[in-house]
Each structure stands twice: as C-alpha cells, then as structure tokens.
C-alpha cells in the first residue's frame, strides 16, 4: 500500500513521530524508538554544562535511520526561537525545525503571535518549519500561508495525557489544511492517537506517554499499532452511525408532479 506521509520534499512510511525526552536512559530511549517504527525523532538544544561531564546523546541516535528534528524548546519569543533554530542547524546540518515558542513556564502553551513571526523568518531563511501551535484554525492557515511544512496543533496541554480535548478545533484544522496536520502534545494513550488518526490527522507526535510508561518498548509498539489502526480506519471510512428515516416528503413532494 502506497500511503506515505509527505512533509516538504520527503516521504515517510511511519506516521508516528516520537520525542526523545524523559526516558530513563539512552538505552531505553533507543529501544523505544526502535520499537515505535518512527522515522522522525525530536531533540532539543541546551547549553553545555561546563561544570560537569556531559553525555553525548547524538551518539545514541542512528542518524541514517532517523531524521533528527531539532526543536526550539526553551524559546520564549520569536527571536530566541530563530536563534535556537540557527544553532541547531549549525550543530546538525539539518534545516528542519520543530518550532516551539512557549513563554508560559507552567503549561508550556505556545505563543501564536511569536510562532507566526518566527515561522516567517525561518521559512525565508530556508528552513522546513513544523510549528507547534494551539488548536487555532485561523493560526493554522496563517502558518500555512507563510510556508510552514506542517501544522502541529496540540491535543491538550503538553505532558497532560488528557487526549483530544481540542477535538472540535482540530477537526476544523484538518478539514481546511493544505499541509499535513500532525497532532502533538497531550496524547496520553494509544487510543487517543488512534482517535486523532481516525479523524484524519496525517500523523501524531508522542513523547511523554511512551517515555514514562512502565514498559516504554511495549508502549511504543502500542502507539505504532494504534496509529496504523487509526489511519486504516480513516481510509476505510467509518461505518454509518444511524439513519433517521422520514416517511413523508414534506420538502420535496412538489417534485413528484413534475414531468421528468
């Protein structure tokens, strides 16, 4: 079956993107990534701790197998996000960026206005931009208009595991988008991911739910299967719910007298 996820000029078999944060160890991260079947994995950029030993996580990721997607987490405004994206490009040679601008330190909710500003600058600078955003259909279209490669609405606040709280808005975004819609943040269970895919999302991004599971490898497999099931269900077309039959023809009865 030729059902590829196409972002910018690249195609992917897997519709599950995974984050690399919050794992107990690099080994646990590596095993879970492997089990998830993901082809895109997100990483963050931080200052080197100059007082202590640093371990090198890049060494733990097989760059031939995974597309490394640097994020701009920690950026509080557009200027910081642009700076982080450029540093990430210098560090990795990758011109893809998951754009995050989160001035609120508690819920880490994205700042739409600054995100749009940063997206504009980064697209002009040659980046493939995947912006994390509130589930705001108008913002989604503005981000798409400035040339973003996807839109990534949050399902519910990041790390909250609450699932598709923003369902009604995400439905509108999916209906209107001309770029892939990647549902990000808040998907706490494989059933949430399946629900998003069933609605017609093009992909999902999961981190906390896999990384903090009792058994991250099993959970990674569960998400992989859920994403595939949801996608298949979307393609198959959900079965009819219920039809309300109407015996009489009050609205169209007038047509019967017409000569066909």
């Amino acid at each position, binding site marked *: 079956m030729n059902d590829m996820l196409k972002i910018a000029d690249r195609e992917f078999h897997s519709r599950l993107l995974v984050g690399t944060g919050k794992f107990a160890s690099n080994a646990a991260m590596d095993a879970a990534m492997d089990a998830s079947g993901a082809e895109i994995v997100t990483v963050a950029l931080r200052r080197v701790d100059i007082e202590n030993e640093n371990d090198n996580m890049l060494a733990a990721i097989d760059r031939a197998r995974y597309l490394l997607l640097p994020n701009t987490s920690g950026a509080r405004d557009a200027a910081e996000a642009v700076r982080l994206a450029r540093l990430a490009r210098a560090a990795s040679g990758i011109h893809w960026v998951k754009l995050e601008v989160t001035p609120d330190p508690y819920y880490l909710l994205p700042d739409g206005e600054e995100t749009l500003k940063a997206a504009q600058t980064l697209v002009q600078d040659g980046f493939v931009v995947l912006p994390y955003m509130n589930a705001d259909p108008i913002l989604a279209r503005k981000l798409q208009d400035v040339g973003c490669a996807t839109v990534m609405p949050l399902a519910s606040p990041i790390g909250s595991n609450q699932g598709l709280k923003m369902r009604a808005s995400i439905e509108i975004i999916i209906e209107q988008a001309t770029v892939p819609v990647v549902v990000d943040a808040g998907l706490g269970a494989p059933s949430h991911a399946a629900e998003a895919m069933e609605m017609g999302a093009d992909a999902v991004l999961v981190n906390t739910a896999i990384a903090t599971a009792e058994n991250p490898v099993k959970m990674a497999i569960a998400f992989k299967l859920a994403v595939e099931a949801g996608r298949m269900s979307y393609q198959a*077309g959900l079965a009819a719910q219920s039809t309300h039959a109407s015996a009489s023809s009050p*609205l*169209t009865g007038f047509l019967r007298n017409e000569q066909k």
Partner: protein
Amino acid sequence: MTRTTNITAILADNRLDKDRSVWADALERVTAAQVEQALAQAPGRYSVARMVTLLSPAAKAYLEPMAQQARKLTIQRFGRTIQLYAPLYVSNVCVNSCRYCGYNRQTDVNRTRLTREQALADAEVIAAEGFRHLLLVSGEDSAYVTVDYLSTLAHELRRMFASIAIEIQPLQKDDYAALFAAGIDGVALYQETYDRDVYADYHVAGPKRDYDNRLETPDRYAAAGMRRIGLGVLLGLADWRLDTLAMAEHAAYLMKTYWRSQIDFSFPRIRPATNVIHEWPYVVSDEHLVQMMLALRLCFADTGIVLSTRELPAFRDRMMNICVTRVSAGSKTNPGGYASDTTAAEQFTVADERPPAEVAAAIARCGHEPVWKDWDAGFIGV
C-alpha cells in the same frame, strides 16, 4: 516553499475539464447503500467521493432525506434568514458571441450603455424598494465598463448600499484591488461549463473564448481581497453532474487558498433570450436542480446558495425553505429597466416577476426573515 497547485492543474489531473467519462462511470456505479452511508456521516464536509455519491443517479431516490439534512444544516449555519439583492445592468453591449446569450454581439438587439446618472437613477429605484445589496452587471464591454467607470459609480452607490458586487468581464488583479478600494466587495464570474470542448463550442468568438483565463480569474479577485466569490455553471450546456463535480473542486480549492473569502454558488438554468438558440442538449429538470443544490449544501456547510429570478416563484419558494440563502427580486435584466420604460434588450426573460415586497412576504411565509442588509462594508473601514 511554493505551492504548485493551481485550479487548471487540479482539473486536468482529475480529468474534470476533458474526457470526463471516468467520472460518468463512477456516478453510475454508486449504490443505494453508499448513498445511505454518505447520509449517515455528519453533513457539510467536502470530498470528491462524497460529492460523487450525492450527485449520483442512485441518490435521486434520497432527495427527501437530503433536503431534510440540508434544511437543518442551512438553518444551523445561516439562521432563519434569506438575503435579498438586486441586479443593476449597466451595459448590454458585448464583444463576445456566446451562442446562448441575449447579449451576443451578433444578435441585432437594442444596445444601451447607462451613463453614471442613468445608473444612479436605476440604483435609487432599487434602494427605494429596500435593497442594500447590489450586483452590478454588464456584458463584456471593457471599452465602456472600465475600472474608472465602476469606481466612480461605486463611490456614489456606497451612500445607498451596504455591499456592492460585480458580474462583468474578467479583469486583472490590480483592477480588482482598485475596485475593492472603491467599495466593491464581491465578484461573480461563472465558468458556464468546465468542459473545455463544450466551452469552445458555445463561446465562438471574443475574449471569452479563453477558458483558462476565465478559470483563473477567481484567483485574481480573491487574491485582491474580494470577500465574496460567486461561482456557477450555466445549466443546459453540458452534463450537470460532471460540471457540478468540477465546480465543487474549484470551490474547495478556492476555499483552501483564499480562506478569508466566502463562496456563493449560483444555479443559472438557461432561460429564453432574444435571437439565440432554443434547443439545449442537457436540459436540467427541477429534480436535477434540487439534487445539485442539495449535494452542494451537504458538502459545503457555509457557502451561500443563490437563486435568481430565472426561476419560477413556486420553485423559488420551495427552495428558500430548504437551502437557499440569497435571492434576487424584482430584477430587470435590461440596462435602465428600473427607472425608465426602455426597450433595451434583456439578458434573459425573468421567470419570477413578483415585486420585491411580495418576495419578502414569501420568505416570511416559509418562516425566515428577509434580510435586506446583513453587513456593512463601511463598518470595517473599506
């Protein structure tokens, strides 16, 4: 990143502009079970597959449930209101030779161009009837109906009307931007038929022969900021199902690309006109027209559905109770027809001759409120 998609490519890639038999076959293959499944989904979402299903011959047996859904959805999205507008024909001079049209330059009819004063005289009659939405119409008369003519006129008309749209020849983007700045906020421009061969057959001479230019014109005026995009096919020229499919794809493309503008669908069935052919290969019955309107509504929850005075009173009244959101009333399709007893040629013969107040009463009778004005462009500083 540049978006490479454009409507010409979309129609060509999907074989909706030529050699459309693949779609005719798909329509024939639709089963009753598929129609029932489509009707079980939440209405108002577009996909080509859904459109094919609802337009299919199989769906003809489901017009009543379709109408029930369409009525519910229309009331939900538009409220119990129907908007009234009036056309003002400013010129019936035309450089084209469209075989179906009363303005065809090869026909020998009484040609008139309204001066600004004459146009304002007609406009005052229309305004006095209560209208606040106006549609300026002309033949393809680019020598007379210029950007300057329209801008100057619009400037005067804005005193009387909340919203002014135009239905004239295709223009360039800068022209549309100038007209938008002058207070014109909508454009109607019908492709007539999306079938290239049929199009070529009917548009025998004049600039309108250029199918692609016409097809890409909505892009230009939407990009110039026009708030209302009027699409339509002239029903009678080609297979209505196939043309509706193509128009739906066009609408879906425009909605995604120019998401700040609203689409209106119009449903002009060919009407008699002076000195033009009277035999049409694809006559569209009432039943077909109803199916077309319902299928579009059940795929597009928020598009305007416009029914003009080309249709008979009984039919208009029925459809106003189902899915129509805008109607014209008291229309004169000849320049100067409102303020004078002119003998200037009509574009077509009006079928609903009721005065506007009677149409408003009919709207009220079907439980809706007739709305003469529902927004004012001045409010947002245009």
